[in-house]
């Protein structure tokens, strides 16, 4: 190559790189944004056309250590990270065993890894159990502005400390600080206005189920316990543009008289003095019945503004949707939603293997229609019908709605129903493409019955099943790309993914999709860039 041609190639490459860089997106927090909409608004690489040609780019087995049914969580993506090897786009995975792994996205090369230590060894020990696995459970979050000149990522370790790490190296930018109670199972971190928000869940480690917040400036930690159970929304808490923080509570009585806000969606906000204060709450009219049936409000709600209204959409294991007004969550009695949908799934109202467990998405299409997309487990409900149904799912699927005003009231109007999927989980919408995966997990929590002629011998079922048999009965995860407007399947991963995952997630950025499985394998799919 002549010097002139070399120069031209370098210039062209730089232009391409600059163009790509200019149009590149980052995935800095679980659920894409503070409001947990799952809508990757600025994604430009994927299209409904090119996604049909998506392929496996690489797969790597991380040196991660599983705990109970957990291993790796959804990665964060940051492009243009100035590493020792030059600028890189990194995918950073948090692992359940207090581990972090950073990979270069195009090659899958490991750039750095680290493991946290613990200042509370007396409680950060032992194998854990299915619902309380111990370890690091919160997807970290990356700051949008530098800290001490470095791109900073915040993570919470098993002992409850908050870490400020250099995305380029994984090293500390600042010393770790005490934050959440140790062994408390916090969920994905949400950075808003200088504070990190999350929630502690399911009484793990003897912890109170609560909203918790860490002020990065004052280093003070605030807690608000709603008096309910749960608080295990997969994407952590939602924060709206007004700074109000939302999450559902789980199994406990809803009783305003005793200030017990079980099975409700609760909103808090940081007061000027740093405290977390109650703003509002909504409890479905059948909240206490949901409690009896263990139908937690277990899904991170989504906040979006549409046609001048501030909406919040919530759902639960019960598998119906609540459309709420963020300025008046439940009306005067805290029990009145703008709209309550019929069931999308879970006609049997089972507490396991049915309902919504993963994460929804909310997005606006080119015609200005506001969509709500809901992946679910188990059979679709007899109550749900859409104009376009690609199947009547029996193992799981996705239901899509538009938010419309009809006869003076706001409604969620069914638009399409997807093909069948094995335990449909997270939804992310990117440039008109809906990415969703089926975890293939054995989500049953009830010991099955076995007939007398079962080769393993008969068994009276009904007891609560733990992780051990569920790990054995897991199937295969699968990734799907659907047309987000029509629900048409554009691509699927077939049998590429060889095992299942549990309570993990999905990340999309810059023409790539990342998914991991219980055995620690990371799959990177993508399209030609």
């Amino acid at each position, binding site marked *: 190559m002549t010097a002139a041609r070399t120069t031209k190639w370098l210039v062209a490459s730089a232009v391409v790189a600059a163009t790509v860089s200019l149009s590149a997106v980052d995935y800095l927090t679980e659920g894409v944004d503070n409001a947990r909409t799952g809508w990757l608004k600025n994604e430009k690489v994927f299209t409904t056309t090119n996604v049909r040609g998506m392929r496996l780019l690489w797969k790597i087995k991380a040196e991660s250590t599983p705990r109970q049914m957990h291993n790796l969580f959804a990665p964060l993506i940051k492009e243009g990270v100035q590493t020792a090897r030059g600028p890189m786009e990194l995918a950073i995975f948090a692992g359940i065993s207090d581990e972090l792994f950073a990979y270069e996205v195009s090659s899958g090369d490991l750039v750095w890894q680290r493991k946290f230590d613990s200042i509370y060894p007396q409680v950060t020990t032992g194998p854990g159990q299915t619902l309380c696995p111990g370890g690091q459970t919160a997807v970290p979050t990356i700051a949008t502005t530098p800290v001490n000149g470095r791109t900073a990522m915040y993570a919470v370790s098993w002992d409850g400390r908050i870490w400020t790490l250099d995305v380029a190296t994984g090293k500390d930018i600042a010393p770790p600080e005490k934050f959440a109670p140790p062994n408390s199972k916090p969920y994905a971190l949400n950075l808003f206005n200088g504070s990190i928000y999350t929630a502690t869940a399911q009484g793990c480690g003897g912890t109170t189920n609560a909203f918790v917040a860490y002020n990065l400036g004052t280093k003070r930690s*605030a*807690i608000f316990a709603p008096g309910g159970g749960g608080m295990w929304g997969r994407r952590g808490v939602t924060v709206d543009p007004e700074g109000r923080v939302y999450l559902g509570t789980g199994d406990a009585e809803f009783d305003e008289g005793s200030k017990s806000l079980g099975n409700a969606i609760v909103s808090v906000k940081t007061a000027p003095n740093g405290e977390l204060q109650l703003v509002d709450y909504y409890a479905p*009219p059948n909240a206490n019945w949901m409690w009896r049936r263990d139908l937690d409000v277990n899904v991170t709600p989504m906040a979006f503004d549409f046609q001048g209204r501030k909406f919040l959409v919530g759902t639960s294991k019960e598998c119906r949707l609540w459309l709420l007004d963020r300025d008046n969550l439940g009306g005067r009695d805290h029990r009145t939603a703008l709209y309550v949908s019929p069931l999308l799934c879970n006609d049997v109202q089972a507490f396991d293997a049915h309902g919504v467990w993963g994460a929804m998405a909310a997005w606006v299409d080119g015609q200005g229609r506001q969509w709500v997309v809901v992946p679910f487990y188990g059979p679709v409900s007899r109550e749900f019908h859409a104009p376009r149904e690609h199947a009547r799912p029996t193992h799981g699927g996705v239901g899509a709605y538009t938010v419309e005003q009809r006869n003076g009231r706001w409604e969620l109007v069914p638009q399409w129903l997807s093909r069948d999927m094995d335990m449909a989980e997270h939804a992310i919408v990117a440039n008109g493409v809906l990415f969703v995966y089926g975890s293939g997990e054995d989500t049953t929590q009830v010991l099955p019955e076995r007939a007398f002629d079962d080769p393993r011998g008969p068994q009276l079922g009904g007891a609560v099943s733990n992780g051990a048999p569920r790990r054995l009965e897991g199937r295969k995860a699968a990734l799907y790309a659907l047309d987000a407007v029509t629900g048409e399947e554009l691509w699927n991963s077939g049998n590429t993914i060889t095992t299942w995952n549990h309570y993990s997630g999905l990340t999309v950025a810059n023409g790539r999709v990342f998914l991991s499985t219980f055995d620690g394998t990371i799959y990177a799919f993508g399209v030609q860039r």
Partner: protein
Amino acid sequence: MRSVRTSLIALLCTVSGVALVAQGRNIGFEWQTTNADAQRTNWLRLDPNIAPDKITGTSLRLLWQEKLPVMPRQGVSVLQGVTANGMQVFTPTSFVTGVSNTIFALDNDTGHPNFVKRFDTPLPAPTAQCPGGMTGALTRVVNLVPTPLALPPPEGGPATGYRGSLGAPGEGVPLDIGRRDGGAALRGEPPPPPRGGGGSGSLTAGKYNGAMYAVTTDGALHVLGPNFLLEVERPVPFLPANARFSNLIAVGDMLYTTTSQGCGSAPNSVWAMSIAANSPRTVLSWRTNGGNPVGDIAFTTDGKLLIAIGAGQAQASGYANAIVALDAKTLKPTDWFTAPNADFVTTPVVFTVGMRQLVAAATRDGRILVLDTASLGGANHSTPLFASTSLGSSVAPEALATWESQDTRWLLVPNNGITAYRVVDRNGSVSLDQGWTSRALTTPTAPIIVNGVVFAAASGRPQGRATLYAFDGRTGRDLWSSGMAITSAVSPNSLWANNSQVQAATTDGTVYAFGFVLDRKVK
């Protein structure tokens, strides 16, 4: 199959001013076998919500109705349900026998048939005398003596409600709120005493972990897991094929039923089989050698098996017009009562008055006979403790019921309505004193009692529509009726109750559930 389901969305909670209990995961108590218990009292002793002072004209609602896909046989589609809470951990369930060899596990909260077990067994052509199919309802194992029921104790103090706090810089969240032990474990201290209040104990007597037992047309005994209705044991021969058998009952390690009317060439008999694990499935039987067994087997709390026998020609060592006590293990007769005109038509019902355990049954000529279970007919086996005058031919050949309020033992008789007698023991002399009589009920069903509230239906048979009523158990005062909710006739002996609900099964195979809405409404 498309169910007809009343929408909970349309219901309004109209119980303002009345505190209702929806405490803890469970919300009430179970109906563990047909007619409630081994004594066949038809009495659910306690309920957290159903009580005479909590029922008004509109407080009980139709919660759901579910039409089950069952081909009726001689006007009967489904039999009385048996319930268990905590199926699949959280689901209260009614197990309903469909006469055409089908078992349904209905979710008592929604009516949804979560599981269905169909047996592929040929059905004979039905006749009035020999309807064929599953003529007796399934059962679970029940205690000889019903487990005492109790509501949880009052809360010890205010529960800890929502609260917040702010930690000092660098100290993390305040652990007095952040951890239930206030951080004691982290400091190496013993945990603080638990806070009072916030109790949410289970209201059930305990989750049932056993199997369900059912017999199909071919006489085979099937043992089903209650959570998924899978057959956890290989079916074994039990009864002659096509027999007409009564509702099953399992007490301890034994399963029992009767056969009557000569159907399938089965003799009039009591049948038993050991269901203990690893025991041989040997069939025991005892022939009446006389009349037909009537209704169902009942047990005294000290383990005697009682069977009522109707009219017939008693052969040598045979019985007719009798109540016979059998040894529960060997089925050998240990006592009996017989009288020429004691053509019994109802299941014996066992209850205690004072220090004595009594049994009562109705005869075809409309009398109620009360016997001492310690000596059924006295020295001559023919002397009842008490025999009422005839109530006429209107005594329904279904079942009696009995319950006890604080100071009174009641015996309820379906007779143009419900007649409630006080069973009185005056210095050893037992009598039935007139208590109250309900409004007139055409072709009444056997009554059931839930925590002092009597439920009975004007059955609507043969082809009308039924109406279910609730009465104050002490006065007979009307409390509530189902109005026009039920659109067909209620089958004989087809009411049951559990978890603040009352269910009724109709001749067209529909199960209706009535109760308080509580927190079931959706919008």
